[in-house]
């Protein structure tokens, strides 16, 4: 009786480590590689041409690449403000646009790579490029130099994320619990970190990507949706859900209820014919977005109920219940 039990326990332990390795190897690293490649292609395309129509496909691909990793909010992305420099949204005070106007009118040397990397995070990245490629109002001067500087800066950031994971944070996560690793003192801590990305990623979709345009019934705020100008508000939701689904599947093959809830949310997102979530302004359209939002929340709750216990972790003791 004793022996088989012991065997099961040790198998479970090794399977758990394989989960972290799978997430890093099959999800995080390839997705970072894809984003870095797409951002590099965009920078190359911008050198060829500044014409927004010609650049749009490369911009859309790079944004797709970002949606493959945006739910991962730890590691190199949280250092040096990289995450915000790639996407500064929401931006309720229009800090990005103001900073870009200033860059367009001021000293052109600020567009040189070293100097540009020091400019406001709000002015840069995909959100900055979107305003230049899909302008909703005229800019005060030729935007071409700023487009090129922003695209090249974005490629640098994406490259730093990829290398940061491949050479630094990935190995750190995989050596969780080993002597000398003071960031992750056990394998459970590595699993907890990845699990937390699933939960907060779904929260972000629910509260920000869907919650901001929904506003309240009395005051819907369709203008607050993400990436309206480039027509990506709903696409971002769908792609991010797909990426989170891939991460959950790599974390635990047994989280069938969580995967089913995610599939349902993805299906709803793909079936919704409301690319910029403008329907949030009408009672009918709003209902559909709310149903999607509820499905995202159901997936989040299922992750907490099923996936967390399966991994032997919770979200933080203090993080979820402050005072």
């Amino acid at each position, binding site marked *: 009786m004793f022996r088989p039990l012991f065997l099961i326990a040790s198998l479970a332990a090794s399977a758990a480590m394989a989960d972290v390795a799978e997430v890093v190897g099959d999800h995080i690293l390839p997705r970072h590689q894809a984003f870095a490649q797409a951002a590099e292609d965009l920078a190359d395309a911008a050198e060829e041409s500044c014409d927004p129509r010609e650049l749009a496909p490369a911009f859309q691909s790079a944004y797709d690449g970002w949606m493959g990793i945006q739910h991962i909010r*730890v590691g190199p992305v*949280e250092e*040096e*403000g990289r*995450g*915000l*420099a790639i996407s500064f*949204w*929401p*931006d*309720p*005070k229009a800090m990005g646009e103001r900073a870009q106007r200033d860059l367009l009118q001021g000293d052109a040397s600020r567009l040189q790579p070293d100097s540009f990397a020091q400019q*406001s*995070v*709000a002015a840069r990245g995909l959100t900055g490029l979107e305003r230049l490629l899909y302008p909703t109002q005229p800019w005060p001067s030729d935007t071409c130099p700023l487009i090129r500087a922003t695209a090249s800066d974005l490629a640098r950031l994406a490259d730093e994320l990829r290398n940061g994971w491949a050479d630094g944070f990935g190995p750190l996560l995989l050596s969780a619990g080993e002597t000398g690793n*003071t*960031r992750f*003192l056990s394998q459970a*801590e590595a699993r*907890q*970190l990845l699990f*937390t990305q699933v939960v907060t990623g779904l929260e972000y979709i629910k*509260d*920000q990507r869907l919650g901001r345009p929904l506003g309240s019934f009395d005051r819907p705020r369709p203008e607050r949706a993400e990436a309206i100008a480039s027509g990506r508000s709903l696409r971002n939701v769908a792609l991010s859900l797909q990426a989170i689904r891939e991460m959950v599947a790599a974390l635990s093959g047994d989280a069938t209820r969580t995967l089913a809830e995610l599939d349902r949310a993805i299906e709803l997102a793909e079936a919704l014919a409301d690319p910029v979530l403008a329907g949030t302004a009408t009672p009918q359209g709003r209902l559909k977005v709310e149903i999607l939002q509820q499905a995202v929340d159901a997936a989040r709750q299922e992750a907490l109920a099923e996936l967390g216990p399966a991994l032997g972790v919770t979200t*933080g*003791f*203090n*993080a979820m219940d*402050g*005072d």
Partner: protein
Amino acid sequence: MATRRSFLAGLAALTLPMPSWADVGAPACLAAGKQGERFVLHGLSAAGQSLFAIDLPGRGHAAAAHPQRPLAVAFARRPGTFALVLDCLDGSVRHRLSPSEGRQFNGHGVFSADGRTLFTSEVVAEGSAGRIGIWDTDGFRRIGEWASGGIGPHDLKRRDDGSLIVANGGIATDPTDRSKLNIDSMRPNLTHLTADGHIAQLAELPPELSRNSIRHLALGRDGRVAFAMQWEGDPAEVVPLLGLWQPGQAPVLCPPRPAEAMRMRGYAGSIAMAANGLIAITSPRGGVVMIHDADGAHLATHARADICGAAPDGDGFLLTDGSGVMWSGDQTGLRLLSKDGPAWDNHLVALA
């Protein structure tokens, strides 16, 4: 019929000093936590060792340590219907404090320097008007209360002159379930109460920061107040979560660069000031501790999941997280002190 032995024992008892913190190992700080399904209060050394552990009936929030005797007052989480006076020598509950009719404890408390009085942050259950409860520690009888100067007081600290600094968080909560009732109209403030309970100074934040709840405090040797905030407004807005206050002057806010500030996720859970003036604020939601210089300028951010408890330790800090780990830290980094402890709760309470 006194025997020689009982005579000597009686003599020893007469000359025995009152028990002190030294009798329980001279802890550097107290921390509540959860170990399995048990809630506990530990006394911890500056090296991260547990010196004693006492069972609590439920999840604790903060504790107040008697300045001399090994007594700790553990406050229940909000809405607090009780506080326990614990004898850290034997773990017994010496007194069970209930707030007056219609009042609720609101998380924190502090003893007077001579240990004869305990002050507790409280709210009137209906409306959350702030009160400071006053207790005589000889029997822990309630002897009165003062107005705290605002709504929803949370942390309070005692200055060397016996006056109090109160963080009136500004949030009115439902008396049964903690739900927040007045986010649109909240007006947090810092109040300086004289030793006899009069409002000497009261400072508010600029109107655009009225949703920045002032919740936790750390005092410097020079009398300066460092305060930590929790943002109840739009999470997309980057707001300062640390401020400095010299009563009589306007509070000074300490915003880090936006890219750093966002790592806190709008939430500072604890604050501590080291002997050299360094200030730490923690964010369990962002999984970071930020270290600032004495003027509030950001020096470093260190990542650690669910880090929250913070107490001064010489020129650095002691820090605890929800994974049962205790760290020492300063602007250069975090160093592991001990692990496998309970899931440490929000606060580390330094003994004076």
